[in-house]
């Protein structure tokens, strides 16, 4: 095994010696990378990869990191699209779509959520109607990160209204740059616009761009959603290149800046527990008995949540027979922590919590925390859905009665 890994490392090193240059245009370099088979070594051999396992792939990434070499592009939703196309696409779709994802020539967005179906994603009502060798799509999508510069979208739309809701959905790959697609930024309560709304009006998808069969969309969407939970959307190029010099790094940093722009406020939605104790000290608020109590509550929550997560991970690692539900409570504890942190930041700031911007504490960072925390208990599935999952799957409590079986056409829906 070790020999195998050494051989891989040596091969990558030799290949980089020959091809890696910092004065090459980024796309040109990535084309070489794909042709050389090093863009996605864990992908199958037939589709730009080498069929490597996770450990072998890590060896490749380690060499890239060490050499400061830039890897394939598949940040964000493009990574999810690639993962799903690999799992469910036909040969033509894989040949057509995967390569430009790796080279960064195509970026993608996810067109799943709708104004009328948030927690109940399978209740979506965007309609795709077959018209000869194409589908005509009408409806509205929301929470579409990076849709304003995406080339393609992974789209869920209903193709059959006479079957139960999960069975009437199909999965499409849609060209975003067409007249029937309109993208509008969606401004959030904290002033940032990290997402978009996408309006689909007689948008066209060729039949060959349907992923899987009609009615298989929900099953395929679960591949995407599980990849999202496992973090496939993150940047896999792995290079710590922030401080390296050369034209290709400039180009890469610009690409990264665009991809990461929606996420600048994300740390603030966690409540920034790290700032609480130092700020309480600096401002003198630490002398207030009430602040001391609430700060201690916050630090207890945060510390205990970390300990619970570590304990659950250790249990998974050792496969112990003691079942710890700590893993499933992680999302709820994140919400508790964020809310308590916002509370503590408010106590520490006092009247200054009225301010935002440059006059406000920490140049507005505290204000941004206070206005970003409400997102944590909604994004990625609301706390309420999470509590259903915990009470049903961990505690074995019965489900609520449902009213959405039978043909979707008859299921009560939001009024437009």
């Amino acid at each position, binding site marked *: 095994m070790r020999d195998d890994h050494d051989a891989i490392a040596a091969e990558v090193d030799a290949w980089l010696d020959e091809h890696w240059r910092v004065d090459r245009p980024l796309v040109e370099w990535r084309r070489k990378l794909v042709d050389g088979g090093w863009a996605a070594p864990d992908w199958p051999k037939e589709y730009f990869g080498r069929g490597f396992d996770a450990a072998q792939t890590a060896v490749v990434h380690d060499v890239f990191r060490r050499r400061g070499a830039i890897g394939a592009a598949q940040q964000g939703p493009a990574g999810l699209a690639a993962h799903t196309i690999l799992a469910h696409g036909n040969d033509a779709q894989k040949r057509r779509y995967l390569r430009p994802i790796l080279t960064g020539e195509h970026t993608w967005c996810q067109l799943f959520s709708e104004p009328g179906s948030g927690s109940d994603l399978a209740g979506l009502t965007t309609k795709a109607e077959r018209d000869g060798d194409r589908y005509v799509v009408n409806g509205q999508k929301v929470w579409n990160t990076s849709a304003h510069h995406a080339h393609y979208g992974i789209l869920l739309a209903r193709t059959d209204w006479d079957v139960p809701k999960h069975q009437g959905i199909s999965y499409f790959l849609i060209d975003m740059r067409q007249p029937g697609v309109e993208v509008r930024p969606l401004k959030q309560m904290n002033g940032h616009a990290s997402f978009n709304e996408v309006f689909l009006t007689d948008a066209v998808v060729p039949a060959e761009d349907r992923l899987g069969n009609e009615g298989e969309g929900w099953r395929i969407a679960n591949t995407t959603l599980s990849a999202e939970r496992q973090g496939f959307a993150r940047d896999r190029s792995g290079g710590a290149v922030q401080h390296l010099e050369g034209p290709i790094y400039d180009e890469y940093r610009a690409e990264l800046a665009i991809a990461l722009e929606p996420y600048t406020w994300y740390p603030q939605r966690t409540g920034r527990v790290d700032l609480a*104790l130092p700020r309480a*000290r600096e401002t003198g608020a*630490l002398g207030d*008995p009430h602040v*001391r*109590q609430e*700060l*201690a*509550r916050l*630090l*207890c*929550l945060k*510390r*205990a*949540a970390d*300990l*619970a997560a*570590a*304990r659950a991970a*250790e*249990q998974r690692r*050792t496969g*112990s027979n*003691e079942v*710890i*539900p*700590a893993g499933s*409570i992680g999302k*709820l*504890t994140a919400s*508790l922590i964020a809310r308590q942190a916002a509370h503590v930041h408010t106590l520490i700031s006092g009247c200054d919590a009225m301010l935002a911007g440059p006059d406000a504490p920490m140049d507005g960072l505290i204000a941004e925390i206070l206005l970003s925390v409400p997102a944590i208990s909604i994004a990625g599935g609301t706390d*309420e859905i*999470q*509590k*259903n999952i*915990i*009470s*049903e799957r*961990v*505690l*074995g*409590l*019965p*489900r*609520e*009665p449902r009213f959405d079986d039978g043909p979707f056409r008859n299921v009560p829906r939001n009024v437009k």
Partner: protein
Amino acid sequence: MDTTWTPDQLQFRETVARFLEAKSPTGVVRKLMESSTGYDPAVWAQLSGELGLTGTHLPERYGGYGFGPVELGIICEAMGRHLYCGPYFASAVMAGYALLGAAEPHRERLIPGIASGETIAALVLDDLGDPDRVGRSIRAADGNGSSRLTGTARIVVDAQVAHLLVVAASDGDRVALYAVDPAAAGVTITPVQSIDATRKLSRVTFANAPAERLGDDPVDLDALWDRLAVALAHEMIGGAQRLFDGTVEYLKIRVQFGRPIGSFQALKHRCADLLTELELAKAATYAAAQQLATGEGDPFAPNMAKAMASEAYMEIAKQAIQLRGGIGFTWEDDTHLWFKRAKSSEVFLGTPAWHRERMIQKLEAEHA
């Protein structure tokens, strides 16, 4: 920090659980609640003799088994789960740990009896809520070779059955440990009514009572407090888990409006919240035992454990009654047995607010 149990510890956990499940069903608990001694000597003999639980955490050179806070935690968690009635916490945990702070030869002389369970000891503290206030009432007058104690401890756990009183008293300068024979002249032990009849309480008064000082050094009450608080936190999460499990099961079988009430989101979501609070308290408690055992980790870990376990237990106890509806408020239903232990433990050895304040003080000391 790894707070998962080793296979040996898991097996020990199993053994203790099986024993208490057999010996401490609620029928027995209710009988002992009505008794004046509050324990069954036969069960005590078994748990201290055959199982060796009274010596588990005490050093081998004093007749113990030399295990640590993690194993003690396993015992206390099971005892809390089954509402064990007996002087284990008072004697083995409180007095046993306190005497580790005595000087030789007193340790050698006094601890083995506690480790074997033949001696039942009670730790007399004139304040059960704050170590900084201990020694304000009970004063010691040290003569040559012998001492005299005067003062009152309003709440002492299991003094009614003690063969030995270990007393923290102030000599005017500092707080030191003394041994007192409960039968000696000048010692009055008066049972007091308690909210939680599974843990017997007494008032102990000394009127120039003869005592033996157990060393020149002052007793390190802060360190002792940490150890006791972590043991108590284990007791609390054990009780909380039992109440929570029972409540969830009840919600699955109780039918109203034609459906199990556990299918209502209002109740399911509350259960998910309670589970979250319980799991956090457990994580904090297990980490505190590790911190005591290894010296690694957060210095405030015992305070975090006691504060979180207290609040989780109390919240679960309140909800266990609420979610049962009317039956939960009856004497016949067992829920109140744990509710009372939860309420009493919440304030025993420091309220959650006291522990949070101590936690911040420790963080300030770290930074200074």
